[in-house]
């Protein structure tokens, strides 16, 4: 069988099984965009070179498409992080910090990686990252590599994995080697 015939076979197979063969970034984004939001528990583990042990935080997050996200940390210290459009606010120990992300392009790129993934906004992701998808629709892994030098100076890689329209984990690998892993468990089916 020549390489040409193989190509033809694959093409035919592709035509015959479009749903199977078409799983690419576009399909993933379309799936994610269909996600109607909801509540999830999370466990966030930070591995810092400075510390002898990883730091673990747990809590709940609520996502309301397309641009509202609330992350409520319960342990070790209560904290509420809210993202509403470009306003990021953090409430912790009676202190409230509001950040207009539009003023902070690096932070915005960081936030866009979560928000763009959750909402399936490919354009927002590709603005700052090169996307690489592997796996199947059932079990996919999306790797994002920063394309902006300013962001690359802070962040090596973001790895998001999930199933269909549900994001299951997000891992940030920082430029200094520290990393954090956010594991997400949906609370109720939509």
């Amino acid at each position, binding site marked *: 069988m020549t390489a040409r015939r193989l190509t033809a076979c694959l093409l035919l197979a592709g035509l015959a099984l479009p749903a199977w063969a078409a799983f690419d970034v576009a399909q993933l984004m379309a799936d994610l965009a269909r996600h109607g939001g909801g509540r999830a528990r999370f466990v*966030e583990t*930070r591995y*810092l070179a*400075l*510390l*002898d*042990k990883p*730091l*673990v*935080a747990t809590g709940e997050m609520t996502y309301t498409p397309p641009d509202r996200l609330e992350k409520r*940390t319960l342990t*070790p*210290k209560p*904290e509420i*992080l809210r993202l509403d459009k*470009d306003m990021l606010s*953090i409430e*912790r120990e*009676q*202190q*409230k*910090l*509001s*950040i*207009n992300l*539009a*003023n*902070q*392009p690096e932070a915005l790129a960081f936030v866009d990686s979560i928000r763009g993934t959750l909402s399936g906004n490919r354009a927002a992701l590709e603005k700052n990252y090169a996307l690489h998808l592997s796996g199947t629709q059932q079990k996919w892994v999306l790797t994002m590599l920063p394309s902006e030098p300013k962001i690359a100076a802070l962040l090596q890689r973001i790895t998001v994995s999930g199933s269909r329209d549900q994001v299951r984990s997000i891992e940030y690998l920082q430029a*200094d080697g*520290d990393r954090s892993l956010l594991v997400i468990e949906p609370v109720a089916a939509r």
Partner: protein
Amino acid sequence: MTRAAGRTFGLWLLAMLAGAIIVWNTRFSADMSFFLPARPSAEQQVLVDQIKEGVVARLLMVAIAGGDEEQRAALSRDLRGRLAKMPEFVAVQNGEAGSLDAGRDFLFAHRYLLGPAVTPERFTVAGLRTAIADSIDRLASPAGLMFKTLLPRDPTGELFALVGGLDTGAQPASRAGVWASRDGERALLLLQTTALGSDTDGQETAIRLVREQFATATGATGFTLTLSGPGLFAVKARATIKDEVARLSVISTLAIVAVLFFVYRSPRLLTLGLLPVASGALAGIVAVSLAYGTVFGITVGFGSALIGEAIDYSIYYFVQSGRLGAAAWRERFWPTIRLGVLTSVCGFGALLFSGFPGLAQLGLYSLTGVATAALVTRFVLPPLAGDDLHVRDVGALGRALGRAIDGLRRLRWPLLALAVAALAWLGSEHDRLWTANLSALSTASAEDSAVDMALRADIAAPDSRHMVVVRAGDREAALQGAERAGAQLDKLVAAGVIGGYDTPARFLPSRATQAARRASLPAAAELRARLATAVDGLPLAAGKLDGFVADVAAARTMADIDRRNLDGSGLALVVDSLLLQHGGEWSVLLPLRPPPGSENLAIPVPAVRAALAGSDALFVDLKGEFDGLYADYLQEAVLLSLAGLLAIVVLLAATLRSPRRLAAVLLPLLVAVAFVVAGLHLLGERLHLLHLIGLLLIVAVGSNYALFFDRLSAARDPATLASLAVANLTTAIGFGTLALSQVPVLHAIGVTVGPGAILALLLSAIFVGRAGTP
């Protein structure tokens, strides 16, 4: 010209020359101080300082429209780069990232002298353990993550404690990395000028530079620049007043000259007639300059009214003495004119006692002007003019007027009824007559105010309405006072009563506090020993904290932070704007921020006052003080008007010596006042303080006419009647010209006194001296 006349003229010329020299050296101003209290209370002084030299008065807001987002942002960066280099601006902000780095570096380097949490307890084993554990906890949060790289040097989180109190609330929206309006259509910049808010020249230069640099930066494409701020208002107000002083004076002079030329038909008499006016206007400015040092533009603008009023005396002289000669005029007419001058002086003189500096100046200016014009008419004019005046016979005019007045007299009862009706109506409309706001006197146009409001909302410019003020004799005592007040305010912040506050002591603590913080720091060996115990069981090894130990050791010998250390960072600006020196007195301002999410961002004033009770700190509500100013002025103006009225009544009573004649003289004046108020209200004019003053002037000026009818039976003497009519016309022209002004202060007096003067003459003719009184 005789020898005596020559000598008189020479003396007059010398006096004028001296006056001209004084005026030449006079400082003219068009700033807000026209409105600011002459004898401020402690709270009002804070307001005055803020308006004259406060930061808010030095802010200019700039908006760039046109093009697309990226183009606007590029232009914003370009403009910032250009302006930031100029000494005329102390700060140029447009929201670009990185503009705060210098400040952050300074805070980190001096964290052990600045940190509010630096106490001996903090550096005990238990204190260290708690602080370090907290810092580690924070690393689990994005809020703490930005401190991660600093942790080995700052494990106790002093920088976090330090910046925690900073304002992180309202920020402008941002597009393409720079500030933008909320709709994203305009890029925004916030400038702080080097020039004080009261330095109108400096503000004008700054504004011109912004416009020039913008024009250079854009070339000729479709971008527009909008600018607003207190400085722009001051510059515009000055331009308006300058323009109007010239315009109104020319209009009023030309109109009056035309009237006089029609009456005299003689260039010589015309010129002579203007002498007292010119003398009066000059004397007025000289008096104000000598008494106050600075002459307000509005005061000079009032000159056009003075011209109309001061010309009356020469009109009386020329028209009335034409037949009789100077000596007979002096005998027959001068006493009445003198009495009229005195009533005018009473009216203007009442204003001298006003705590509203603008009003006091107007009073002194007019009083001096009128008195000088009358004296020049009496003593300089007759010898200069000589005896052969050749005034055209104006009897025909007088006779025609006499017949008209006879006709009008039949309307006496209907007019009285109308006056009563007007008063009754005004009584019922009482609540809608007056505006209760000082901004009614502001020269700023509604359009400019709207632009300013919109920009202010977009840029979230600090309004700093509520502040705590501490005063002391030197910088150290002032800063210590600020720290004591801060300790009280910290409790309010913790209780959620206020959102936060700014204080210069945050970046420039008192030496005492710096010394106490330095003394809290243990020596290196001791710190190392305590650390080893403190981090036991924590995921952070003591061995990674060498940087911390070194930094603490360095802080122990670090010199006190001085104001000079702040140079080059934005913090210098904060400290300079909040720590002010006036001669030997220092004052510290601590602007308060409302609690986050509170309704209409209100500060609970009673709670703050209660917290500060017993301390030497003063709580000031700047907007409240500003609004209160007007109420104070209005209350005072009512009192002064009544006092002026009383003085006029007493003067008239003493001269007329007859209650019936006094009543007859006053009646037409009061009816005129009622008609003017009713007329203005009918036309939808909202009355304010200056209208009230105008009413007093109607009585002061109008009494001149009433007296003529009472004492000289003017109605039966055609020449006197004609002179009154011409004098009245010029007065009405002078004041009426002010009605054209866009400056509310001048406009209000113009629309009140202009018609009021004519009504006063007409009503006096109708009501006074009817039944052959002598």
